[in-house]
């Protein structure tokens, strides 16, 4: 075994290429409940992919299947060209970071991080060096002799991260690792994890229900709902061009206005309130005809507020509430048809007074036209 050769240099965590993950036709159910249905996904080497979805969307189950903690009913998981579907977790060599940290409470920080190395029969000197290096990576030098319960939540999660990285896995799986931390710490750790991942180069699959976290960290986001993929794409794509109503609604704030398709000249237009018409995107006109209803989504930050009408599309609204959020104001207004409309406006701009009547404008091309979900108008 190679570990019998004493190494003189302190071995850094090698920048290594991550492994490619391929999930093919995975289906899994708990009892009668189908949680994953014919799931396909490929993650490229060194890519950071986030599974984003509400609870019950099957994202954690999928992560556990990749990690070998759950065996799928059907389908296969291929990592680095090897079919690992039936391989137990211990033989997959992946790092797994749990939401509750899962640190061994009876072991010190050092012993926790050393555990994966010791069971691989690595020499004590080497273990010491690697543990030291891993703790430095997560900025926890000097805390090695503490017990997990003597650390804060953020520190515990960093130990858990160090433990998952110390044996240099090609794939690291993270199940809502920052879920129970406060916002500031979460942002700090998001950046730390992303920097580490870029530096080391492992393939990362990350599970979260927090869309901001998904946006901040990922190369690609997989939006999941009801055990199936709803959209896969770069964060910007998912945000700006959501593929369907669920994605638009789940990812970020969005104002929804009903529209009806109408014949106008030689083509269809979308008729929304107050005489505004919008162009119909190709994917909508392909499947729908005159008289069908659509939803028009407008992101709050895409809207400009004016005291006078200026071009179209435009909607008249009454300002109900203005709230300050540091870099922006959020302006809650009410349209003439009674619907609420949210506007997010840079705090460097002037904001209208509460109770005043304003005109809301946006770039027609930034309208997100969606087919309404079944059973809703």
């Amino acid at each position, binding site marked *: 075994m190679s570990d019998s050769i004493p190494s003189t240099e302190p071995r850094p965590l090698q920048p290594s290429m991550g492994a490619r993950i391929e999930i093919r036709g995975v289906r899994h159910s708990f009892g009668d409940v189908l949680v994953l249905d014919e799931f396909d996904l490929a993650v490229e080497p060194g890519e950071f992919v986030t599974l984003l979805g509400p609870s019950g969307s099957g994202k954690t189950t999928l992560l556990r299947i990749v*990690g*070998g*903690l759950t065996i799928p009913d059907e389908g296969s998981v291929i990592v680095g060209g090897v079919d690992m579907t039936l391989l*137990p*977790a*211990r*033989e*997959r*060599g*992946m*790092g*797994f970071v*749990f939401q*509750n940290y*899962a640190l*061994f*409470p*009876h072991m*010190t920080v*050092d*012993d926790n991080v*050393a*555990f*994966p190395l*010791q*069971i*691989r029969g690595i020499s*004590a000197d080497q*273990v010491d060096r690697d543990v030291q290096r891993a703790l430095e990576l997560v900025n926890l030098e000097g805390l090695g002799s503490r017990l997990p319960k003597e650390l804060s939540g953020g520190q515990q999660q960093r130990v858990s991260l160090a*433990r*998952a990285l110390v*044996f240099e896995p090609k794939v690291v799986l993270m199940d809502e690792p920052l879920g129970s931390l406060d916002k500031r710490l979460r942002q700090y750790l998001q950046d730390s994890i992303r920097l580490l991942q870029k530096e080391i180069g492992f393939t990362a699959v990350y599970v979260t229900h927090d869309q901001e976290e998904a946006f901040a960290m990922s190369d690609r986001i997989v939006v999941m709902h009801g055990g199936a993929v709803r959209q896969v794409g770069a964060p910007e794509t998912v945000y700006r061009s959501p593929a369907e109503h669920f994605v638009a609604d789940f990812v970020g704030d969005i104002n929804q206005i009903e529209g009806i398709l109408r014949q106008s000249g030689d083509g269809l237009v979308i008729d929304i309130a107050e005489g505004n018409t919008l162009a119909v995107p190709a994917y909508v006109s392909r499947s729908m005809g005159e008289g069908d209803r659509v939803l028009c989504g407008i992101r709050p930050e895409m809207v400009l507020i004016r005291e006078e009408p200026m071009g179209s599309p435009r909607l008249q609204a009454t300002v109900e509430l203005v709230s300050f959020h540091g870099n922006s104001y959020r302006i809650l207004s009410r349209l003439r048809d009674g619907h609420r409309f949210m506007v997010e406006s840079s705090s460097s701009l002037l904001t209208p007074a509460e109770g005043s009547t304003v005109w809301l404008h946006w770039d027609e091309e930034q309208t997100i036209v969606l087919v309404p979900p079944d059973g809703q108008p």
Partner: protein
Amino acid sequence: MKKLGWQRQTRRRPYRDYLVGLALLLPCMGVVLLFFAYPLIGVFVRSVSDPAPGLSNYVEIASSRAFRNILRLTVEVSVLTTVGCLILGFPVAWYITTLEKRRAQLFLVLSTAPLWVAILARLYAWTVILGRKGLINDSLVAIGLVQEPLDLLFNTRAILIGMVHVMLPFMILVLYSSMKGVDESLIESADSLGARPRQTFLRIYLPLISPGLIAGSLLVLIMSMGFFILPAVLGGGGDITIPIYVLTQIRLFKWGIASAMSMILLIVTLALFALLTKVFDPKSVIVGGSRR
């Protein structure tokens, strides 16, 4: 004004909480002091003062070969019972933790069902099973495995069988509750970090349930050390344990000797207790090799 009121309240709280806590403790403390500490002191005083002041009782016991044998038998039986309960109870308790809630409850009730039957009934049931004309001997003779009935009853083995039978439910209950408390994600975590099942068991699982191992063993051990009725019935007078011996001394009105023996039993039990906590100390259980 409002702030002042708030301050006064928070300042008074800890003291009031303390008083309430004390009041809740009092009944229990009273019982312990009155019915345990006081008699124990009485036993100790008697052991060094009856029939004459001094350590004569202890000297007499120490020089008695018979007592040493009795002490050895008592410890032997108790330790073996504990080990037996651990070996038999561990898999059962573990199995119950793997069941879903309703089945687990059913199995727990079933495994503790013997506790509902009066102990004497259970012991005499064993005499029926183990006796010379008992179930086992009759069967063995009938199928021709043995010519003469075996001596299964009224010996150390019979005591052991009975002891394990009586103590096992306690061990299962205690082990189960500590096993139930083990966070599944810790086991999965060890698995994902590459540990083989044996390594996970020795380095993670055993240390995590060590409080249960200690508590269960302690319970069984202490109850076994002081068990009177069981060795009396199944040992048939041939195998004498300390509690039986103490009773015979009391019948002879040798209160001093009986008290001294009780004290020795107490000390030996405490020593075993100390040994036990050492054996199952999470740090010593780590057989897989701790680094530090």
